[in-house]
């Protein structure tokens, strides 16, 4: 229906002739799938699965421990067999679904063993064991983008959950100053955000070495870059530094080392244009991250404005990079984010009702001007042909 709507619209605009419209519609009809029936069937299957889980959950206490453990092990073994059979026969979607299912079943197995035997270890240990057991089979059998995203989210969650032991290690290595809790450290939290993004760039590069996994590697790289931008934006959005945090040298040296390793990974097997973009992105991210950390002095009233300017400069670099690479979506996003930050800056700088009104007027006009400028500039950004190098 959507295809017909657009085909008729383009025909009315004189872009395509009536025979072309008929060819498009007959091709679309030939590829039509009963999406609604699939949706209803999917909802039915989900309802059955949730019903089984609810009944099992309600009677969980009545089920003997041996049965719980035996069923869990059996389901894991069956699912592993399903992954192997579908992998051997080249059935892509059954293999991906079974691999994801096995990934979640292994975690549930670890949780059930922990419950039955009242194990006391920290959550991050269970998650780390889960990743150690599942990463090898996911690396060899699961090549879909979605599986890559799920694995990356699991890895980042494990990293965040392991905050206390990682913080303890960094304190022992004199990278960060000691604190009662990891979250109190203004050096550790920015590092905790920055390091996984650099690590994921390295993982994506390693994944890219295996030709069948290149699409997944591209997705992981996009996720890593998005993570890096989010990490730097968060670090530059808040005042992190406390009075008792001591020297920042250790944290900055670690971040620099991670940036260099990620840069070396991005350098590998890339075109000169991609290398320039990678170097620009990593360089700008590191400079902004470091500047935000150095500027984060709560005693300085100008710190907030400097942070805002850093944020705007960072997104301006991202916008410029997007314009050069022909990424219109990112360019538009950069423009929007800068506009929103300027609006927030207005509110941060003013006080009182009259001043708030003036702030709203000024911020609104600024946003309108930015939107107009963005519209003109976006049209000048060359559209990137899908699949071509930036």
């Amino acid at each position, binding site marked *: 229906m959507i295809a017909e709507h657009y085909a008729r619209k383009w025909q009315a605009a004189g872009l395509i002739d009536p025979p072309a419209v008929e060819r498009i519609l007959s091709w679309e009809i030939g590829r039509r799938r009963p999406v609604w029936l699939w949706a209803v069937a999917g909802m039915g299957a989900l309802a059955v699965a949730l019903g089984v889980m609810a009944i099992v959950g309600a009677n*969980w*206490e009545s089920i003997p*421990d041996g049965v719980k*453990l035996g069923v*869990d*092990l059996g389901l*894991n*073994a069956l699912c*592993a*067999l399903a*992954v*192997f059979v579908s*992998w*051997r026969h080249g059935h892509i979607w059954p293999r991906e679904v079974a691999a994801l299912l*096995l990934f979640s079943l*292994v975690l549930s*197995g*670890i949780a059930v*063993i*922990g*419950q*039955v*035997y*009242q*194990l*006391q*270890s*920290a959550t991050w240990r269970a998650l780390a*064991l889960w990743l150690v*057991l*599942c990463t*090898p*089979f996911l*690396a*060899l*059998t699961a090549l879909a983008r979605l599986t890559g995203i799920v694995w990356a989210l699991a890895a980042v969650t494990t990293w965040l959950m392991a905050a*206390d032991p990682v913080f303890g290690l960094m304190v022992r290595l004199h990278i960060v100053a000691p604190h009662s809790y990891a979250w109190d450290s203004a050096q550790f939290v920015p590092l905790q955000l920055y390091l996984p993004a650099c690590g994921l760039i390295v993982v994506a590069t390693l994944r890219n070495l295996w030709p069948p996994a290149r699409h997944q590697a591209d997705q992981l790289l996009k996720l890593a870059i998005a993570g890096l931008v989010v990490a730097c934006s968060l670090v530059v959005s808040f005042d992190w530094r406390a009075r008792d945090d001591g020297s920042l040298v250790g944290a900055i040296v670690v971040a620099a080392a991670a940036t260099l390793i990620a840069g070396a990974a991005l350098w590998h097997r890339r075109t000169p244009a991609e290398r320039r973009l990678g170097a620009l992105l990593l360089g700008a991210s590191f400079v902004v991250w470091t500047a935000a950390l150095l500027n984060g002095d709560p005693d300085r009233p100008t710190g907030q404005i400097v942070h805002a300017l850093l944020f705007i400069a960072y997104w301006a670099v991202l916008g410029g990079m997007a314009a050069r690479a022909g990424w219109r979506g990112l360019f538009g996003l950069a423009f929007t984010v800068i506009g929103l930050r300027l609006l927030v800056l207005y509110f941060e700088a003013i006080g009182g009702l009259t001043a708030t009104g003036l702030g709203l007027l000024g911020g609104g006009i600024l946003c309108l001007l930015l939107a107009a400028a963005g519209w003109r500039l976006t049209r000048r950004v060359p559209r990137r042909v899908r699949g071509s190098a930036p």
Partner: protein
Amino acid sequence: MTRAFGIAVAATLVLPVLALAALIGQQEMRFAEAQTVSVPVRGVDPRDLLRGHYLTGQFDWNWDMPPDKDGDGGLCVLPGDAAHPKVRFLDGWQAEDRSDASNGCRLVISGRVQRTAAAGPTFVPGTLDSGSPSVRLFVSETRAPDLERLIRERPGAFTVDLAVRRDGSAAVRALRLDGRILGR
């Protein structure tokens, strides 16, 4: 697709299943040739409201002589058939320790003493130590609120059976309420 690659894929798929089975086997091994000691659990404040079905508590040891400092060592459970046997801390005790210190103990549990401002010294077995003086015990959703109230209002009613091996390692064998097994 080579034969070696197929074997590698099969090996990576067998790994998680074997590892889970090995984890179960390891826990069962802990119960083999182990002696059991029953320890009451007392409630602690603030209870962790985010832990769902986990009941947070501390072992309520019957100290013969309370330890005066934190540290690693062993907990000597003194002989006697009392439901709440007396215990004594052996500072620096290790499993291979054959000194006279552990003579006269029914069994020794390896772990560490942590003193808390609110509840005084407590001993946490090394194999159950998650860094905090408390232990988290999984209980059913329906019984959790009653049990939480009970461990505060009737100290000693809720106990944990610890299976202790000769090397001092301890594992939770069962949870009991008024002597009746709750789980496992």
